């Protein structure tokens, strides 16, 4: 007779339950059993663990998602992943809950007479395509635009670029990564001629000293910080926190050094001065592998519409550079930065010690900087002068904040000037892309159009009429937000927003498309260390939610680009990835085949001869090195990296009598970016329910403000009231306040300034002048 396994198993289990309880109760009187335990057998038998990169930050932890009955129910760290080795942070462990908020968008919504009406996906996509055609006919190709993000998967960004640059023929492609790591890109491009870090996270296991440049790693990159802490436990490494705010990171560090906002430029130069002055320069390395350049200064801050700037690099000699540094002796810089000459010398001594391997780590502190490109250059200078680069443990390392800021925005190139391989300004690069895209080369315009801030300004002016926003929330994140929010509401603008929850950005949309997120679809992300990671679809998206990739493909087909968007719905991710790989088919950037990605917990590009490249530009590890030397900075035509002469210049808007404080913004460990996902995770929202303004205790005392008091912040852009936080999560330096930006109910960006680095066009969210009053 046939007996089903389940019933037999449950029978045995029930028997076991009863007998165990009885036995236990008589044998071990100390143990009490609750009644519930007689009921309910564990149902975890069906739990299936599948690997994915984490949905949140750019660290790119490997996670294993527990799937039961088609739902994601649990998360643990992937012990096989070399990124996190089995550990996650509080966001990662609860990440799957981000898919199950009760207000998940499941149907397309179209705004009709001021209210949103549910429609079918087909109807919504038809409307989008017809609006795009209409706009192009009436206002030209450059009136339509797409604004994506570093949370775009690689296929999302790739089809967006192909559709807009290749097929429609406009360079109006941007992504929120412009607000986040554009300065890192221009830093790499100007210093090395090729983007992304030379080292990898393994550097953490080899370095002796860690410099955190304005990076609150304990909260923002906790898993990597835990790796450093682990090394400190095992090897006694040193952590030096160099910041404008005392944070958890400062408390955990061996030494915390505070500086005045913007003066990191001066301190970095002073460190170089010390290195040269003390004879710590690695002469042979510098002679063989470095050039010295200077660029234009007094570049301005991009505050006016249509601002443009092009740097003019000029070669200088080592002597010129040395003379320039005379202005940056530790004693002189002490006056500018508030960092004691002793501390500057202390920092320089680690960089200068030939027996210490040094890793410099940074993220938004250096990138969201009105001289972001410069400060990136200056930190590379330190590593180049001492030759501490591209070897295990010697590593200037730029971290990212989004899961695919590198993978999609930087590598696929979803920025106005970029192509997957190269830039639109270069004819060869255009030809190469056009061939793979199967479009006439004339389609791709040779001039970049608008970077992000300018794109929203163009929307305001009416130069752009149609904008499609995917996976990002600019109505929380744009600086000087009010201007750009008002822009979207102007007559004759059409905004499409693809997202998973209602946000302040969907609030201004004409069409809202429900997206399938993360493991509800198939895709790849690329993390900060050049690691490409694949994830399969594990659960069904809710309602009519559709991946951003397929939304774009559907619209592309409606616009008449069936030939270029030939992909099959079942296999399109694989087809797109294989097509994308062709753009990077060379030793400097080769991407791993999909089969390898499916098997491994991520692979570092360049992937050559079946191997990840852990340290680029180092002939021992990097097969693309071809000059016969130990190092080859092949991004530059002469194979040499550039040491840049970059001075200290003040920020766009510094405190004055009327607005006497610095306003700094940032994040907290509990929330990710604008909180549209993490605030719907109960444990994270309960842990950090709202934003606040952090004050220095001295300032708070003077203004008679206590924790919890309402504080009115006023800048030249507007006012906002927030509860005060004194001596809690962080302590800003005197005359500075800090506000996290995740809270859509307390939009700090309404009052921030839209100044940006003239080279990278990345806004400085860390510095503007503010008045602080007890409300």
């Amino acid at each position: 007779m046939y007996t089903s396994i389940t019933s037999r198993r449950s029978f045995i289990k029930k028997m076991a339950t009863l007998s165990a309880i009885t036995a236990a109760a008589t044998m071990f009187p100390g143990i009490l059993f609750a009644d519930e335990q007689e009921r309910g057998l564990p149902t975890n038998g069906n739990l299936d663990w599948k690997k994915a990169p984490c949905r949140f930050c750019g660290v790119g932890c490997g996670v294993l998602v527990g799937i039961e009955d088609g739902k994601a129910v649990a998360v643990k760290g992937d012990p096989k992943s070399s990124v996190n080795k089995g550990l996650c942070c509080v966001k990662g462990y609860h990440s799957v809950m981000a898919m199950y908020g009760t207000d998940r968008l499941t149907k397309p919504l179209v705004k009709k007479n001021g209210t949103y009406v549910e429609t079918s996906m087909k109807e919504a996509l038809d409307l989008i395509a017809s609006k795009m055609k209409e706009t192009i006919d009436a206002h030209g190709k450059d009136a339509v635009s797409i604004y994506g993000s570093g949370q775009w998967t690689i296929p999302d960004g790739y089809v967006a670029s192909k559709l807009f640059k290749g097929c429609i023929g406009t360079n109006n492609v941007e992504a929120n990564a412009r607000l986040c790591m554009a300065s890192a890109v221009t830093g790499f491009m100007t210093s090395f001629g090729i983007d992304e870090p030379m080292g990898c996270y393994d550097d953490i296991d080899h370095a002796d000293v860690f410099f955190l440049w304005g990076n609150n790693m304990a909260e923002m990159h906790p898993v990597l910080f835990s790796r450093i802490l682990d090394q400190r436990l095992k090897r006694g490494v040193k952590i030096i926190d160099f910041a404008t705010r005392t944070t958890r990171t400062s408390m955990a560090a061996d030494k915390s050094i505070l500086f005045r906002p913007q003066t990191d430029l001066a301190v970095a130069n002073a460190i170089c001065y010390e290195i040269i002055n003390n004879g710590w320069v690695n002469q042979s390395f510098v002679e063989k592998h470095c050039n010295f350049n200077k660029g234009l200064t007094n570049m301005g801050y991009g505050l006016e519409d249509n601002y443009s700037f092009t740097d003019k690099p000029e070669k200088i000699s080592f002597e010129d550079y040395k003379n320039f540094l005379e202005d940056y002796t530790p004693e002189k810089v002490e006056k500018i930065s508030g960092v004691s000459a002793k501390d500057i010398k202390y920092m320089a001594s680690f960089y200068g010690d030939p027996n210490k391997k040094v890793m410099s780590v940074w993220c938004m502190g250096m990138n969201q900087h009105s001289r972001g490109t410069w400060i990136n250059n200056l930190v590379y200078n330190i590593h180049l002068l001492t030759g501490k680069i591209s070897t295990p443990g010697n590593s200037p390392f730029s971290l990212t904040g989004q899961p695919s800021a590198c993978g999609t925005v930087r590598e696929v190139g979803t920025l106005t000037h970029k192509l997957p391989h190269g830039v639109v300004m270069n004819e060869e690069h255009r030809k190469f892309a056009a061939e793979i895209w199967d479009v006439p080369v004339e389609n791709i315009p040779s001039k970049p159009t608008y970077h992000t801030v300018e794109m929203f300004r163009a929307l305001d002016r009416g130069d752009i009429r149609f904008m499609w926003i995917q996976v990002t929330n600019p109505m929380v994140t744009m600086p000087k937000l009010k201007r750009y929010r008002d822009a979207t509401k102007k007559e004759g603008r059409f905004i499409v927003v693809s997202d998973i929850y209602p946000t302040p950005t969907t609030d201004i949309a004409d069409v809202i498309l429900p997206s399938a997120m993360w493991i509800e679809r198939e895709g790849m992300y690329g993390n900060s260390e050049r690691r490409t990671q694949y994830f399969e679809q594990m659960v069904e998206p809710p309602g009519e939610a559709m991946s951003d990739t397929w939304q774009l493909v559907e619209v592309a087909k409606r616009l008449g680009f069936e030939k270029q968007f030939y992909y099959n719905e079942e296999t399109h991710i694989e087809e797109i990835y294989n097509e994308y790989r062709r753009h990077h088919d060379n030793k400097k950037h080769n991407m791993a085949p999909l089969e390898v990605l499916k098997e491994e917990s991520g692979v570092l590009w360049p992937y050559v001869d079946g191997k990840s490249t852990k340290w680029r530009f180092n002939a021992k590890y990097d097969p693309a090195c071809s000059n016969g030397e130990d190092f080859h900075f092949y991004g530059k035509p002469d194979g040499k990296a550039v040491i840049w002469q970059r001075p200290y210049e003040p920020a766009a808007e510094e405190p004055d009598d009327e607005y006497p404080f610095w306003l700094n913004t940032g994040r907290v460990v509990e929330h990710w970016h604008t909180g549209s996902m993490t605030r719907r995770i109960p444990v994270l929202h309960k842990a950090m329910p709202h934003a606040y303004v952090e004050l220095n205790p001295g300032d708070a005392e003077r203004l008679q403000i206590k924790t919890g008091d309402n504080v009115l912040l006023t800048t030249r852009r507007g006012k906002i009231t927030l509860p005060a936080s004194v001596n809690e999560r962080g302590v800003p330096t005197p005359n500075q306040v800090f506000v996290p930006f995740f809270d859509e109910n307390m939009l700090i960006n309404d009052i921030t300034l839209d100044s940006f680095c003239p080279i990278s066009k990345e806004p400085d969210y860390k510095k503007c002048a503010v008045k602080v009053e007890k409300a």
Partner: protein
Amino acid sequence: MKKRLGIISLFVILFAAFIAVWNYSYYEGLEEAYIPIENNNPTPMIPSETGVFERSDLGLEYANMPIDENHQRSLDGYYDNRAYHGAPPSIPHPVKEERSMGGKTCLQCHENGGFTEKFNAYAPVTPHPEMVNCRQCHVPLKTQSLFKGTNFPELEAPAVGVNNALIGSPPVIPHQIQMRENCLSCHAGPSAPKEIRVTHPERINCRQCHVLNNKEIRDIGNFSRQHSYE
């Protein structure tokens, strides 16, 4: 004289040798060690055993410890503090130092446990005291309100007393053990939830009798007998 010369030359040789070795090691130190690219570790099929014996020296003490009936934790309370079973627990008490990553402050109570007057409870013992950035995963809750509701399908937590196959046979381990390999931290001592407190903590080698029954990491296929006589 000869003897003295011999001693002097011996020291000279030793000194020279010291200088040479010191010099050599100094320059070796300067040179970058070549670190070969390691092959990725294959997916573990057998769950990690690190930390299994971590608190075993306390086994006997745990066994002899009288049970404080009035201050026992319950399994319900244990699960209430987690978003799903296996999730990092939130911190159910106020924390003094917002700016601290945790570390020593947390470990004071949570490394070895013990009774805390203030909370009238025994502090639970962490199974991973070597991870000191505690608040990267454990957060205190400041409100009970929600931003928006959730439909997160909460996994049913494993129950007690249903995990053995035969009467009196050792129960299998019904939960994930990653980062919780050290059994005694939760299953022994006064802070262990009463339902899961082990009666024989002195036995130490827990996993000689208790095995895992959940799918770990990668399913490499079903190994069943194919041939049949029917």
